[in-house]
């Protein structure tokens, strides 16, 4: 067994040192009724060659986005990741280290987290950011919980453009904790509708920009109105690349920002692991969920970094913690930070503009071909209202080896939205891919 270094000779010597006859003697505390003499009913050990073949067989049954024209988004996006990123995150010192609780021998991870927090703060336009959460949806849910702690109110209003999976994640967590939620009617372009639902018990309103249909919204006025009513504005961003081009949530007055960071540095990987970015105004510093890295000095007076304000966390505060979260998304945060460093402001702006240009070229060609695009303003994703149900259309496209987008009905069964197809166009899409999408869509959907 290639992963187990003990030989039978070692085992015998060690048992002798312990003073027992057999390894069974070490399991004496297991109740008789639960002791198993043999192995469970599963295949026996296998070499690398065989295991690799078994895993490849799974992969072979999937269509890789790299092989086909690919327009699937709605909360997760295919972007180019520089080769350097994957090389660095596989260095042993990053890959195989634990949470940096011993700062003297974890300054590498800690400095990366400090840089990550700084990048997230600047990208979102907010003063403070944490060291990451599981993903964008759980970050949004944590934001709602934080808003109820801060305002001592108990209701969250969710916009009709919020990704339905995010809405469900927020609802599940909020209801478990006893927070009331109110979801606005599904709408392509009506984030401001949240304001109609604010009452004296509203802790926060949650809006998304660009929203699930791709619509970008200036939320400045929503922020002002919500705050005037004593509620916090939580801005959700599922396409972090959009922040290279669009005004930051901080500039628009957000109190809390919850972002899915996957687009920068993290592969699609069928939905996870991803990385949740969480940022807020300075005054909420001690109410933030999750780990925080802070600057300090060591005994020689040299700059160093530590996990800080940990008394908010579960391992110390136990049943009074701000969140039960323990693990963050460390390695994905590292990948994000490396990719972000490689891009810098210059690269981020450039790739954002390419996304914008390609998506708008695709929109123009679809409109020319007679399709109805319902998203008024967008970054790299828009929604086409087809003449027939979108679920059947994407299946028909898939048969023709085109992955054409996400039917809104895949996310939520909502009358009136059966024909809505969400189309994402990133820098990975070629002009030929766009032409193929338009032609194939005409074939199967008109």
């Amino acid at each position: 067994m290639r992963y187990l270094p003990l030989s039978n000779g070692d085992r015998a010597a060690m048992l002798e040192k312990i003073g027992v006859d057999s390894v069974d003697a070490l399991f004496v505390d297991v109740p008789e009724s639960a002791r198993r003499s043999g192995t469970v009913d599963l295949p026996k050990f296998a070499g690398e060659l065989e295991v690799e073949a078994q895993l490849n067989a799974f992969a072979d049954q999937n269509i890789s986005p790299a092989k086909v024209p690919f327009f699937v988004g709605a909360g997760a996006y295919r972007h180019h990741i520089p080769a350097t990123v994957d090389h660095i995150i596989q260095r042993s010192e990053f890959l195989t280290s634990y949470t940096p609780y011993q700062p003297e021998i974890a300054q590498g991870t800690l400095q990366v987290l400090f840089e990550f927090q700084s990048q997230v703060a600047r990208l979102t336009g907010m003063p403070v950011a944490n060291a990451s959460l599981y993903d964008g949806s759980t970050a949004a849910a944590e934001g709602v919980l934080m808003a109820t702690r801060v305002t001592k109110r108990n209701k969250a209003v969710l916009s009709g453009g919020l990704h339905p999976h995010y809405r469900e994640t927020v609802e599940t967590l909020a209801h478990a904790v006893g927070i009331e939620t109110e979801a606005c009617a599904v709408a392509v372009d009506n984030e401001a509708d949240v304001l109609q639902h604010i009452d004296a018990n509203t802790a926060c309103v949650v809006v998304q920009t660009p929203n699930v249909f791709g619509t970008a919204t200036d939320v400045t006025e929503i922020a002002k109105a919500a705050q005037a009513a004593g509620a916090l504005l939580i801005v959700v961003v599922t396409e972090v690349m959009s922040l290279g081009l669009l005004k930051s949530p901080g500039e628009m007055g957000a109190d809390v920002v919850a972002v899915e960071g996957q687009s920068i540095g993290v592969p699609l990987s069928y939905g996870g692991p991803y990385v949740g970015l969480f940022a807020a105004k300075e005054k909420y510093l001690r109410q933030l969920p999750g780990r925080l890295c802070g600057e300090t000095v060591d005994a020689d007076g040299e700059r160093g970094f530590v996990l800080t304000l940990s008394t908010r966390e579960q391992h110390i505060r136990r049943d009074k913690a701000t969140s039960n979260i323990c693990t963050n998304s460390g390695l994905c945060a590292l990948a994000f930070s490396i990719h972000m460093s490689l891009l810098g402001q210059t690269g981020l702006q450039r790739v954002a503009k390419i996304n914008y240009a390609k998506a708008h070229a695709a929109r123009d060609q679809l409109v020319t071909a007679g399709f109805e695009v319902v998203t008024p303003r967008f970054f790299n994703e828009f929604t086409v209202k087809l003449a027939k149900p979108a679920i059947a259309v994407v299946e028909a496209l898939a048969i023709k080896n085109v992955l054409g987008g996400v039917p809104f009905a895949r996310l939520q069964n909502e009358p009136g939205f059966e024909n809505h197809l969400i189309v994402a166009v990133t820098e990975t899409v070629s002009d030929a891919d766009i032409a193929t999408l338009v032609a194939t869509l005409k074939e199967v959907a008109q």
Partner: protein
Amino acid sequence: MKFTKDHEWVSITGNEAFVGITLYAAEALGDVVFVEVPEVGKVLKKGDSFAVVESVKAASDVYAPVSGEVIEANDSLTGAPETINAVPEAGGWIAKIKLADASELDGLMDREQYEAYLATL
């Protein structure tokens, strides 16, 4: 000055009282890094948690030694939490409470009793 078994102190003038944590508690906590003081106007029942004192390794609730209304909070602790370590039983006071029931003081320890109690810990 009166004391509780939870290591709070009360210093009474008329029907008002300053409350804080004792030297023993401050030393046990170590370097205090943050104090969450109560809002003025908050009405407390004896035993209510009304403040939190945090060190690097622990966060501790502070319980009201007597019932009453918070009439003043020591906001300077927010910017200078180390005051709790320096002078816990003076400038490190946390809140000033208007007593609701002066008879509650009878159940508290005086310094001699408190020190005897500490010796048993």
